[in-house]
């Protein structure tokens, strides 16, 4: 989710690193780019401004300008500030309370509250060995209670029945009694989605909070949310003493600026990420890992080392030589490259090292697999020698034949060719620069998704 943001930031950072001397002017220019990257990632404007201001104050000061390696010093400042913003350690649910410990979830309509309640219940049963009961106080949305009931049955936790005819506070009170009676360790309370500007509904959730006195009050927010994340989070944090945030739908390709906004505005830790519709798609959130990788620092160096160790140096040198001489990158070269990737332990191993990508939930990572690469290799193998050397020959009927030969669809061939074109373009840009430069470019392509797409 965060990888596009890291990509943008690391481009900027990379440029800075190379510079021996920084001036106030080029610091400003770089910060402008950081600002745009953050905004494009949907980080709320006030949060962006606050961050840039802090970085600027430190950067234009002695700390950076007097440094021997000012580029790196600036990078460090940006990283420090991002880390400070995200927090450092994973904050677990606090359930140390006379049971039943109560967890209240709240948020806007459709954010994923009900699904998250089921995920939390499952997490607590399976990983924390708790006895869990859930209840829905959503008397408004059609079939909201049925939805939670179905999910509770799926994950095998206690469900306290309620009905749309009841008052939410009365439901909460009755559920609390039942949880005590049945000595549940945890009672998780689902609430209706509500707008922060809906005074009546906000009063209702405050009343629920007062009745339940929950040890955890969690704000559930959709990772695809734009600038409104800050406004909304602020209003909920003012209405309720939030203890944490859960960011849902992180399995998509949103750049996740909402994470930064909500964290900044509420000052509360993001405790979990929702990463899928299924009830097991919940992951504890590790802010330090994200903050480190958001700037593209993370493990890039160790990745380069590993790549250099494992790559077939002879083949790579041949390719580098070819590229330097201005010869064309063809399908044979592409196949070599893909095979190298498989040799290196495949994408899974590589991905963990890539900035940002490593922070993706496992459920996403598992979708990017070596099968894709092997399928691509199979397509190349189904081409004739001539086609491999001159991919331009691949017209419609040839593409269809290649697809058939590899037991795949013409669309797969098209995708391969598109990726080939991207690589080719990259290689031709790379007239000089040798092995190191090549590797760096490859990483760039990986991060940008020039290689097998993630699904």
């Amino acid at each position, binding site marked *: 989710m965060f990888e596009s943001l890291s990509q943008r930031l690391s481009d900027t950072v990379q440029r800075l690193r190379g510079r021996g001397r920084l001036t106030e002017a080029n610091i400003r220019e770089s910060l402008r780019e950081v600002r745009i990257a953050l905004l494009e990632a949907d980080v709320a404007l006030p949060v962006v401004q606050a961050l840039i201001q802090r970085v600027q104050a430190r950067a234009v000061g002695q700390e950076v300008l007097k440094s021997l390696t000012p580029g790196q010093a600036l990078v460090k400042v940006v990283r420090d500030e991002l880390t400070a913003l995200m927090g450092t350690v994973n904050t677990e649910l606090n359930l140390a309370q006379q049971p039943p410990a109560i967890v209240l979830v709240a948020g806007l309509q459709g954010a994923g509250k009900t699904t998250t309640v089921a995920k939390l219940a499952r997490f607590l049963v399976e990983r924390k060995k708790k006895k869990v009961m859930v209840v829905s106080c959503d008397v408004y949305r059609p079939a909201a209670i049925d939805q939670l009931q179905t*999910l509770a049955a799926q994950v095998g936790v206690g469900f306290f029945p309620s009905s749309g005819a009841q008052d939410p506070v009365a439901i909460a009170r009755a559920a609390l009694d039942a949880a005590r009676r049945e000595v549940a360790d945890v009672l998780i309370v689902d609430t209706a989605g509500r707008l922060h500007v*809906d005074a009546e509904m906000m009063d209702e959730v405050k009343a629920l909070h007062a009745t339940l006195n929950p040890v955890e009050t969690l704000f559930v927010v959709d990772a695809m949310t*734009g600038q409104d994340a800050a406004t909304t989070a602020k209003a909920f944090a003012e209405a309720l003493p939030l203890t944490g945030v859960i960011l849902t739908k992180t*399995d998509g390709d949103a750049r996740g600026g909402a994470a930064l906004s909500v964290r900044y505005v509420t000052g509360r830790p993001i405790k979990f990420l929702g990463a899928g*519709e299924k009830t097991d798609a919940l992951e504890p959130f590790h802010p330090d890992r994200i903050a480190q990788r958001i700037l593209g620092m993370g493990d890039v160096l160790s990745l380069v080392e590993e790549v250099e160790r494992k790559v077939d140096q002879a083949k790579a040198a041949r390719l580098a030589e070819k590229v330097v001489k201005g010869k064309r990158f063809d399908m044979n070269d592409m196949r070599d490259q893909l095979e190298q990737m498989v040799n290196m332990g495949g994408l899974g191993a590589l991905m963990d090292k890539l900035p940002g990508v490593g922070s993706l939930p496992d459920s996403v990572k598992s979708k990017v697999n070596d099968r894709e690469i092997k399928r691509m290799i199979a397509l190349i193998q189904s081409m004739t020698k001539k086609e491999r050397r001159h991919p331009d020959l691949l017209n419609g009927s040839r593409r269809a034949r290649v697809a058939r030969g590899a037991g795949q669809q013409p669309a797969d061939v098209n995708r391969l060719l598109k990726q080939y074109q991207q690589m080719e373009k990259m290689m031709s840009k790379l007239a000089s620069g040798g092995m190191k430069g090549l590797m760096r470019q490859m990483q760039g392509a990986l991060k940008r998704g020039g290689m097998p797409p993630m*699904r």
Partner: protein
Amino acid sequence: MLKFWKKKPAAAGDAAQPEPAADADAVAAPSAAPPRGWRERLAGNALARGLGVLFARHPRLDDALLDELETVLLTADVGVAATQALVEDLRTRMHRRAFADADALLAALREDMRAMLAPVARPLDVSAAKPFVLLMVGVNGVGKTTTIGKLARRYRDEGRDVLLAAGDTFRAAAVKQLEAWGERDGVPVIAQGQGADAASVIFDALQAARARGCDVLIADTAGRLHTQGGLMDELGKIKRVLGKLDAAAPHEVLMVIDGTTGQNAINQVRQFRDAVGVSGLVVTKLDGTAKGGVVFALAREFGLPIRYVGLGEGAEDLREFEPRAFVDGLLPETLGATA
């Protein structure tokens, strides 16, 4: 009336708008609802009021004004590229002394933005076929099922025979949710229950709609992220299966966008368009403080018609899209006024 509808449509949508006048607006039949109701509602919310105040302090025609406008656009999710294009154009014109005062500049911006949306303000005509088949698609939780409930009400009130298809066979209680809407709207629902094949449910529903001589069939689908290749392919399959009965069906593939979504909406539309050929958009949840500014980027990039906007959780909280009302929700009419 079902119990869970206790929170009446009027009450649901009006918290943002405490003025009693809004009640009358919210309960009015949608076909009769004047566009003004929409504008008032958007312009009346907290943020728009805040903007009025913001501008009142900066009535001068200078770069500071442009900075304020830039802030407004960025915080409305208009996006960096579109915002810069708009603001830089204004800057050039300002330096050429094209504006007499700050209000004139604001009027020019409003006009530019309205003009960006004008080409996508194309209402949907469901009388073009019988049965007219609408397929609702979109990512998770954006308001597809609720919008179907609203559309069913609207078309029924226009005197059409409407049938709904419970094509979300995946999410817990999704079928029940649509059935509750059917009951509320007095519109029948074709369903097979959870776990059934979505394409076959919708296929059956189209057969039923033809047999019954219905005017409109609206098919729900499960929410899916645009990055989930397999699930996106399933939408293609639904479309193909419908095409077997009626080559022109679905007549409209309506994609729902959550108005609180940021720049990710662009990726969403691109992927859904490629997978099922989206023909129209609905933007929901504009009754909060989100401005839905990403529609400017959507209009520029895809040019897909925006058919409706959602302004609440009730059956009546749907309006046809209107560029002027949309811009009114974003920018005040004059700088002195407190919207």
